[in-house]
């Protein structure tokens, strides 16, 4: 299973990367895409939307079923990856390249309480 060491993780199967400008990039994990199967539709939150941690804000739909993606932390959406909505299969190919959206976190230390790679690997093993 592919669980990059440098990322943080949520129990709801999102990954998070802290960017140098203070924003956080968010996607779903390799484990999550494998469970979902071939993705055929992705819907992302609008830029400017303010999200609470735990709020359903995106949809990833595979040939089999639709699943919600949750905001792992509080924040405002500052970017959405439209490349992935026009090519949902790219998320199956590389779940860490195919990011979904980027948040400006309400709390700069929001990632401190998130799972590290070892803890996430344990969760899904």
């Amino acid at each position, binding site marked *: 299973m592919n669980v990059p060491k440098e990322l943080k993780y949520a129990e709801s199967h999102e990954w998070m990367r802290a960017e140098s400008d203070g924003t956080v990039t968010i996607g779903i994990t390799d484990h999550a895409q494998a469970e979902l199967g*071939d993705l*055929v*539709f992705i819907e992302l939150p609008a830029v400017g939307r303010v999200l609470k941690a735990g709020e359903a804000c995106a*949809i990833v739909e595979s040939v089999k079923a639709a699943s919600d993606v949750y905001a792992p932390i509080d924040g405002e959406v500052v970017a959405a990856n439209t490349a992935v909505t026009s090519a949902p299969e790219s998320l199956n190919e590389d779940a860490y390249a195919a990011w979904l959206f980027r948040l400006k976190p309400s709390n700069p230390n929001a990632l401190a309480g998130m799972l590290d790679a070892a803890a996430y690997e344990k969760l899904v093993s």
Partner: protein
Amino acid sequence: MLKKTPLHAVHRAAGARMVDFGGWDMPVNYGSQIDEHHAVRNDAGMFDVSHMRAVDLRGAGARDFLRYALANNVDKLKEPGKALYSCLLRPDGGVIDDLIVYFLAEDWFRIVVNASTTEKDVAWLRKLLAERAPQLSLAPRDDLAMIAVQGPQARAKVWRAMPGSEQASANLKPFQGAQATTPFGEVFVARTGYTGEDGFELIVPASHATAVWNALVAAGVKPAGLGARDTLRLEAGMNLYGQDMDEGVSPLVAGLAWTVDLASPRDFVGKAALVAQPPAQQLVGLLLQDAGGVLRAHQKVRTAHGEGEITSGTFSPTLGKSIALARLPKAVAIGDTVKVAVRDKMLAAKVVKPPFARNGKVLVNPTDGS
């Protein structure tokens, strides 16, 4: 405890993703469901369908009994080996199951039924037999496995994998089968399937199932799971029991009027009820026009003539669009635009006549969709 087919260990070893399918531990895919789908449309793929059950009906008067028990007319079966698709109906016209019946000899018909319905089908047929034809025997064949090999290259690859099978099956017409003597024992080879492609369904001794599967892999047949089987059958406009029809649904509202023989004077179980209830609904195809999701079973459909519901929906890999079968009011016409409730949106869909795709070709106008 989930039931296992004779090929269970083969699927596990191939790294298949397994699911509980009606109490059976079955492969849903071996990697990419979409790749498996395309392999069947363009080359050759195979499915383990050993969870389905062959049931042998033997004895004098077997044809007479089936003439009464089945909604389609077994008198259409004239040459040995011929197969017929039929519904098994309740007296009130509801569908107990859909099945394929093979005419092997006047005193031997083989019925292939769905996995989850096997027990109730056998119980129902035994009850009918006790009333009408107690001399007949009915035997579920747990000693047999079934492999469906489907796609434009399926027949050639079966012949390569199973020496001796070509001679017995080269001249089979669609919906016809024959017994072949092969290195894997006596194999029943039938030119049938559930994908809209040419191919064979093989009924093999369970003890030889793994050897047959491995020989087919060596001949270049791609293992495919139940996920691809569902998208293929839906593109081909074929119903799935339990989804597109069940005991509460008449075959006449499930797109199966072509399988119900109301023309001949023959009586059969459910006939009187069907004649008495003209259908108010119909089963049609839908092609999604708007972006915003995938059509799925149980989504509500709004039409100019009232409400309906999707019975099966998916993303079609061949069309690259979402498609569905839907039960809609009878007054809805092919070409109409309807609205489907997908989560919090109402998305436009075009009403089309299934099938959507068969024999590698798209059969609906794709510009009708998004």
